[in-house]
């Protein structure tokens, strides 16, 4: 029998794997084969690269935030501007890759889950571009707080399905997307939005997002003439973080920091910091750190940002934490909101609430470093989608 313990078969140390119902084994194997075949297909990379350049707008700038660096009086802070991509977040790097793959596989129907709506919008966008039918599952709670993105997806021709089960957030949207896939394996391609799920998703999504780190590394060498001291990214499922970290994993002197959602507090149910309150478990197809109770039931999570509000973390992060290559910390709702406003006022950039968690960590860190030192923050998305939520919050206060 085929073994999954082969190092190239989806394990990151002891994490990852394929924990799926039998019905999904065939489409997952089909996907593995199609994905591996891309390695021998230069025309795929050419097509993807052209679209990344002319449609997505890559490379995205690496911008030195001088004003805020000066105010904080420490390290130079550089922002990797994924917020400037078409559709406003790093998500499109992945959806474009997967949708092109779906087309090559002859799949005609796309399903996707979304939390903040950025992955949903990015999926709807590439489906419109490539002429694919698109259905997006979204938790009812998230539809409420990200109403603008729901409308955006519909404008792009996607069908948005509200998920009311469980906590009605991202994990429940993943559940529903997996149920859909189980029932429609023939014609349907599931575009998973993060480095989660059964193999090959964590490795495949990381591969499509690695362009962020590749660009950032070349850009910092060009602009500063040296590598950064630290790279900081927010971690929900963890695709933007893996994307930028991949550029620096082999540079031992570059510290890597992942920032999880600290929510209201680190009490169970009030955050989404898997490395603070979680333990190894199996959710949505892979073995990784999961927020769960002692009976193995997955816990409710909370974060002001829908994109970080998820109880499991990508298995590669679990491994990077295990071996100590990446340090994981958390930032609470209020600190993230403060960072949002700080960046808006001092740099004229509205960051996504998800990315604001990484910014908050950088703002804490910078004053501890000297002015010669360099921090890169992955500004994974723009805050336009959050404006409505912040406005509501303000008028309620």
């Amino acid at each position, binding site marked *: *029998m*085929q*073994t*999954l313990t082969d190092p190239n078969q989806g394990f990151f140390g002891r994490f990852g*794997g*394929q*924990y*799926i*119902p*039998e*019905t999904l*084994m*065939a*489409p997952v*194997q089909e996907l593995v084969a199609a994905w591996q075949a891309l390695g021998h297909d230069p025309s795929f990379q050419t097509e993807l690269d052209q679209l990344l350049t002319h449609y997505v707008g890559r490379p995205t700038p690496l911008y030195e935030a001088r004003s805020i660096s000066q105010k904080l009086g420490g390290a130079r802070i550089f922002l990797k501007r994924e917020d400037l991509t078409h559709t406003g977040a790093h998500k499109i790097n992945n959806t474009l890759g997967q949708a092109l793959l779906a087309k090559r596989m002859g799949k005609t129907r796309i399903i996707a889950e979304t939390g903040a709506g950025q992955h949903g919008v990015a999926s709807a966008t590439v489906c419109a571009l490539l002429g694919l039918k698109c259905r997006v599952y979204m938790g009812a709670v998230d539809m409420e707080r990200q109403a603008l993105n729901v409308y955006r997806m519909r404008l792009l021709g996607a069908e948005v399905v509200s998920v009311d*089960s*469980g906590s009605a957030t991202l*994990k*429940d949207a993943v*559940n529903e997307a*997996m*149920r859909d896939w*189980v*029932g*429609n*394996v023939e014609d349907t391609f599931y575009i998973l939005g993060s480095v989660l799920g059964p193999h090959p998703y964590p490795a495949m999504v990381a591969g499509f997002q690695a362009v962020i780190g590749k660009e950032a590394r070349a850009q910092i060498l060009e602009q500063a003439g040296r590598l950064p001291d630290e790279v900081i990214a927010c971690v929900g499922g963890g695709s933007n973080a893996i994307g930028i970290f991949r550029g620096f994993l082999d540079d031992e002197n570059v510290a890597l920091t992942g920032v999880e959602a600290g929510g209201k507090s680190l009490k169970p149910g009030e955050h989404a910091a898997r490395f603070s309150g979680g*333990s*190894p*478990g*199996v*959710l*949505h*197809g892979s*073995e990784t750190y*999961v927020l*769960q109770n*002692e*009976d*193995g*039931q*997955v816990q409710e999570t909370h974060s002001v940002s829908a994109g970080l509000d998820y109880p499991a973390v990508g298995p590669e992060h679990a491994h990077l934490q295990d071996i100590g290559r990446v340090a994981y910390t958390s930032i609470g709702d209020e600190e993230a909101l403060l960072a949002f406003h700080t960046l808006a006022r001092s740099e004229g950039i509205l960051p996504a609430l998800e990315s604001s968690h990484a910014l908050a960590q950088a703002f804490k860190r910078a004053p501890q470093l000297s002015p010669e030192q360099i921090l890169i923050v992955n500004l994974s998305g723009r805050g336009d989608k959050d404006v409505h939520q912040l406005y509501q919050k303000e008028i309620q206060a």
Partner: protein
Amino acid sequence: MIRQTLETLRSQGRSALIPYLTAGVPDLTETPALLRALAEAGADIIELGVPFSDPVADGPVIQRASEHALSQGVTLPKILEMVAQVRADGLSTPIILFTYYNPVYRFGLEAFAQQAKQAGISGVLVVDLLPEAAVKYRQAMQNAGLETVFLVAPTTAPERLPGIDEASTGCVYYVSRTGVTGARSEMASNLREDLSALKSKLTSPLIVGFGISSPEHVANLAGAADGIVVGSALMAAVENQPAEQAIQAASTLISALKQPLLDLNNTQPLATSH
């Protein structure tokens, strides 16, 4: 007990009736009475579901049952305690525990297998665990003397069948349709033929489930599989019912589903066995 029960019934020319019940319905103190009612109404084996917060393979009926059970504080240790109690009270029907992997993983494979065996569980089906990913699990189950059940789906590649067959020490469970659990008014077409073709490739007994809801479905499958699982139809019948009505509804449904299997020798030709 699973394999033995199915093989004995097969030698008598009969298929087993296997109702599925989520533990904690209507609540954990009433589940034993419901289990006894299922056995008395003709269940040959019972599939007992462990509720999970994220049941990705289940349709709405079993999702709701899961949520209900979890809201009642049902846990895997409490389920095992309950099973030990019904065993002590004399229920002898073999029980297959139907679960997602995470509660078992969290419990610890060895500890789970030992305690499940002690409680009187006969076999275990982990719905999101493929044989390929189950090396340690299979070892733990074997050490404890518990039988394993793995799934075959319509999408399963033929080259994987021998591995699944070998890994299944209790029986192989054929998912009759792609999709989540749930009653359907129509069964998959050609299901009898598919089962017959599948059986010829397996050494393990074969049971079938997903979407089987009526005596007509059961009659149609009698003899084609060694066991017939009825899940969502039963769960829908007992949903939101107080204990007494739930027991009544379960008895009525299981008795009706059993009828075609009792009549089997007179009305249905046996599938060719191998």
